[in-house]
């Protein structure tokens, strides 16, 4: 079967976006609105086309993938599947969200085209992952994204924290990649092929089985790095914390989802079909254990965090644990649950990091306690953030609840010991409410400081990276480096600081509210404001009426197992 060139429209758009951006850089066009505008346009078109391919009703006009292609199986290293297309939509949404919200960043310096260009390249890699039918192609696509994001973390060249984060990211990433490719070579040794479809077969010979299992174990390590599974997660906290906020949002919302999808295509088919005879449980146990450890450790460590971004990073790790439940269960319901949770996670984590970014531009400190009283001074965005936190905690009527419910229900449904995963997930959800609720309490029930002292906001940046708990009693020994740091923890915008302290808690009156809303939109930036509110709104809407999403996810998950479109 010949794949029509139009089927690659989303990938082509991402590539074109990257090339155009770099061309514009060369031509000296560096306005954020222009460069970013093109990116947003390209991602939107790509998203429309993918939604059309998924037969989402109003967009069918934009479909470019012929339906015959969906049932055609692998064409070389490429395969179009409903599940892949659905995840394409998820990943593109993440990219679009970040690109759109970044329009509100401070007006350009030289780095604007670099940011958008690298974002487009990373997106291209993610899209290619969803098309992979071959292990090597998959790993190479993962690397495209990986390398782009290593650089993306450091695109703000003058921020030592970002540089440090990028370096850590790169080193651990290189290690993981090496392990991944070694695993792939073992798999090639076992099967004599790197086609993903072959993973569903029993490899020839007893040793072959073991070789394949070891290869899969190595891949679990390499890809576990991408999805921040414990104990391969340690880079994530420092990187999310050190990277520019919008890049953190992209890492959490986008590239982590790519890792999850890669794990799905590598492991789920293998789990479900292969090794039924002898060691069917081995992969289940490995993935289940990974899920268990990941969500528990993520939650436990999140409890003690005093910095918002680090808290969100750990919460993101525990969310990865929930997603891994779906992989461990490896049933259509589990896969659908993971898909729904992935959508939820894009909205929740993307929106949450964007909120942090917005607060940082307002000069609000990075520690959780610096968020006190925000519910009064920035009612709409704070309410949106609150919704996203509730969704992360899995409170009903939010999409986070639906996703978790589906994941846990799939674990309960599957006979065997999978119910352990559901129980662990429930306990973890209960524990996670502690730290989410604490943020809510601080935002709504604690009065903001009467006088915004800059000492209070001031945190030594390097110590801050070294000491994850960010102990407030830590002596400001590294003051020089803090002065260099451009991170949000330094008092860098005194004017905005003053503006904020002018926001007293006054009783809400109508005119006051309208004024405050206008002020809020103006200070946060219309694009970022819209993106945050949109995330919260979608979380709620899909939480109340999730059926369309559930249908899509179920269809995709079923087709993944049946091979039918």
């Amino acid at each position, binding site marked *: 079967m010949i794949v029509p060139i139009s089927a690659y429209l989303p990938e082509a758009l991402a590539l074109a976006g990257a090339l155009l951006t770099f061309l514009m850089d060369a031509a000296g066009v560096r306005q954020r609105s222009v460069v970013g505008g093109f990116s947003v346009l390209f991602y939107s078109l790509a998203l429309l086309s993918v939604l059309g391919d998924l037969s989402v009703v109003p967009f069918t006009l934009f479909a470019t993938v012929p339906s015959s292609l969906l049932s055609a199986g692998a064409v070389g290293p490429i395969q179009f599947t409903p599940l892949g297309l659905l995840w394409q939509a998820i990943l593109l949404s993440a990219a679009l969200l970040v690109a759109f919200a970044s329009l509100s960043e401070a007006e350009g310096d030289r780095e604007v085209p670099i940011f958008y260009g690298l974002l487009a390249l990373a997106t291209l890699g993610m899209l290619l992952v969803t098309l992979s039918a071959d292990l090597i192609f998959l790993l190479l696509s993962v690397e495209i994204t990986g390398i782009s994001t290593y650089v993306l973390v450091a695109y703000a060249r003058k921020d030592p924290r970002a540089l440090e984060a990028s*370096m*850590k990211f790169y*080193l*651990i990433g290189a*290690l*993981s990649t090496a*392990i991944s490719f070694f695993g792939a070579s073992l798999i090639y040794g076992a099967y004599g092929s790197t086609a993903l479809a072959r993973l569903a077969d029993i490899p020839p010979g*007893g*040793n072959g*089985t*073991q070789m394949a*299992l*070891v290869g*899969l*174990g*190595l891949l*679990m*390590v390499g890809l*576990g*790095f991408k999805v921040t599974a414990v*104990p*391969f997660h*340690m*880079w994530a*906290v*420092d990187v999310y914390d050190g990277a520019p906020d919008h890049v953190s949002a992209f890492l959490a919302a986008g590239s982590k989802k790519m890792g999850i999808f890669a794990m799905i295509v590598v492991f789920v088919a293998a789990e479900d079909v292969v090794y039924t005879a*002898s*060691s069917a449980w*081995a992969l289940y*146990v*490995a993935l289940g254990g990974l899920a268990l450890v990941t969500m528990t*450790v993520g*939650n*436990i*460590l*999140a*409890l*003690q965090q005093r910095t918002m971004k680090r808290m969100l990073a750990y919460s993101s790790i525990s969310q990865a644990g929930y997603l891994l439940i779906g992989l461990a269960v490896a049933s259509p*319901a589990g896969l*659908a*649950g993971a898909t729904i949770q992935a959508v939820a996670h894009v909205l929740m984590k993307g929106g949450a990091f964007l909120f942090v970014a917005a607060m940082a531009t307002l000069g609000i400190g990075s520690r959780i306690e610096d968020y006190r009283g925000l519910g009064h001074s920035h009612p709409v965005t704070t309410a949106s953030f609150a919704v996203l936190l509730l969704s992360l905690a899995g409170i009903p009527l939010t999409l986070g609840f639906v996703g978790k419910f*589906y994941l846990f*229900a*799939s674990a309960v*449904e599957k006979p065997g010991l999978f119910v352990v995963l559901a129980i662990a997930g429930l*306990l973890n959800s*209960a*524990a996670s409410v*502690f730290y989410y609720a604490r943020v809510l309490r601080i935002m709504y029930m604690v009065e903001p400081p009467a006088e915004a002292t800059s000492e209070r906001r001031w945190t030594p940046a390097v110590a801050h*990276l*070294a*000491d*994850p*708990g960010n102990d407030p009693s830590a002596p400001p020994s590294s003051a020089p480096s803090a002065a260099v740091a451009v991170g949000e923890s330094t008092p860098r915008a005194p004017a905005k600081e003053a503006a904020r302290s002018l926001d007293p808690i006054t009783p809400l009156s109508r005119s006051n509210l309208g004024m405050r809303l206008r002020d809020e939109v103006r200070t946060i930036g219309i694009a970022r404001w819209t993106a945050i509110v949109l995330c919260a709104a979608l979380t709620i809407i899909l939480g109340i*009426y*999730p*059926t369309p999403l*559930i*249908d899509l996810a*179920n269809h995709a998950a079923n087709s993944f197992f049946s091979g039918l479109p």
Partner: protein
Amino acid sequence: MGLWIAVTEASASQLYHDASFVWLGLPDGTNFVMGTLVSPLGALMLVVVNVVGFLVVLYSNEYMAHEEGLPRYYAELMLFLSAMNGLVLADNYLEFILMWELVGLCSYLLIGFFWKKPSAASAAKKAFIVTRVGDVLFFLGVFILFSSLGDLSSATPATAYAGTTCPGGVLHWSCLGFTFTPPNTNSSVPFLPANAAIEASNFGGSSWLPTLAGLLILGGAAGKSAQFPLHTWLPDAMEGPTTVSALIHAATMVAAGIYLLAITDIYFGFTLTAAIVIVGIGGFTSLFAGTMGIVAPDIKRVIAYSTISQLGYMAMAVGAAAVISDLTPTYSLVNGTPVLNTFTGVAMFHLFSHAFFKALLFLTAGAVIHAVGTQDLFQMGGLRKRMPITSITMLVGALALSGIPPFSGFFSKDDLLSLTWQAATLESTQNGSPLLYVFFALALMAVFITALYIFRLWFLAFSGDRSRGEAPAASHGAPAPAAPTSAPFASSTSSSSSSSHAHDAPAAALPLASSTSSSAPSASGAHDGGHAGGHDPSWIMTVPLVVLATLAVAAGFLPLIPGVGHLLPGLSWTVLGKCVTNCGAGSSFDLTDALLGSASLAFAGLGILTAYAFWGNGKVYRLPKDSPLLGVHSVLLHKYYFDELYDGLATHVILGLARGADWVDRYIIDGTIRGIEELFSQASKSGRRLQTGIVSSYAAWVVVGLLAFLVFFLYVVPWLVGGFHLPPTPGL
């Protein structure tokens, strides 16, 4: 809109059902559907809700004009109307419950509309809490149904039982056997024995579980429809605006409980015990509430008791219908499939006519209150001349309520009584139990009581010369001296003795005989309507009155309209034994029925005459001080001390339970939670140290994880499987 649906339904003669909207699908394939079902019963309800709703809103334009917070009022009213329509159109329990709660919420909000008045606030709370007791029972009943019948797939008996697959999801009525068709199309096959077995198997072979579920659902209906023993909230609910009383607490929401019983009637047809309990509760409530209506001093409360009593009638009819379905099931062919005949139409007929005449009574009472500024009956009087329209329309309502032909109440009540008689006869001949006759007798006595209290109200308000409330606060601050007369009920001769009860404090309302304090004539009034005025309101309020009065007459002839017969399943419209329309196979004249009708008519007439004898001159009657009836009077006035009983229960039993629960919560549950938190915090503190910020330690952890996997796959798995060759061959 509702009318349009209803008319379409009337002409279409079949169900409209759309269950295409899947709200939430569960991973096991269970779908929760938000469907729309227009059943004949629902169509009838739609007419009631929307006609009364429209008229009440129109009426509100003047009645509520002087109040504050009108946007809130209209918003809540509209929310109520949409929720009520949703409730009627719901096609499954889940949706029904959502709407059920929503109307309950609106009721709470609207009762507490005058939230600054403490009595209104507490009445709202009371209504919410008491109905909540019923709601909890209802939920439990639905849980039983859902767990017993809900999760069955299409191959299991539940669907054979329902005769169809379950298109609308598991909570759809049809999946619970509510649109029942017998498995065999031969309608002569008695389905009950065979299906009783199937039914038991659906409930895990248990025979008491279905009965329990039925009783629990009845509990929900009793809470919403203010049936004994959950009736106490409705009189207090009169603290809300009169318009709200008319719409929510007379015509629509309180009837939702009856509607629930009616649509689940076939279910009750399988649980005879539950059906008999319904008849019992209904019959008892009808008399019980009526007696309290005789002494209530507040015009709205009298009508509220009347509502409870009438709802009791409807419940009784639903129960009787279920008893009949249970004992002698019959079928008729609908589109070729035999469908069980039900007799819920009788109850729905009464619901229909009651909605109009009761809304009429409330709205006329509202007009009176609007005019004289008090709700105290003892301060009214002589309004007939000044408020002719109000007086006449209220008379229509009173006659309809009493069951005097040709007003609608007569026809519906007559049918309802004869149905109960039929059920009682069946029960006593088949099971030898005369129990239902007792309930029937109670209901028949209630006919007398009904006529008595409603005409007491009418005479007190309209008859006589002048309003007592206007009388100068004259002569005596002392108790009206017990007039030495021969009659057991002594007429207090002085029409000028003004007895001003605080209308919003019934507990403090004194027994008539010792009523004292003739202080300021109208100490309290919800409205600022001038006393001196006391005239008919403007057209905005009179038009609804006249329309409702017309409907109160016309509703009795509803079954005569061609095409609407099937809206009222099982109703044969009979007048004094002469069957006029929709007759069954039996004879067109039934002597028993004729006798029953005459008896009820006679009772009603007697009630009116008695009322005339006591209050015909529009004056307040007082019991003599030594009358033996004083005790009865006091009990009635204190509403059989139910409030006190419940308060006592709440203070002692519930509070005790709550303390116990609190202890458990504090020390066991909270303790556990704190323990978990402590555990996590400690773990968190120690785990944090591992995050050193040094990249080589991160890499070390990756390697640790890698080694763990390698050990697992290379050694643990083969060892457990006993399969692969160990150690790995050099070929690896």
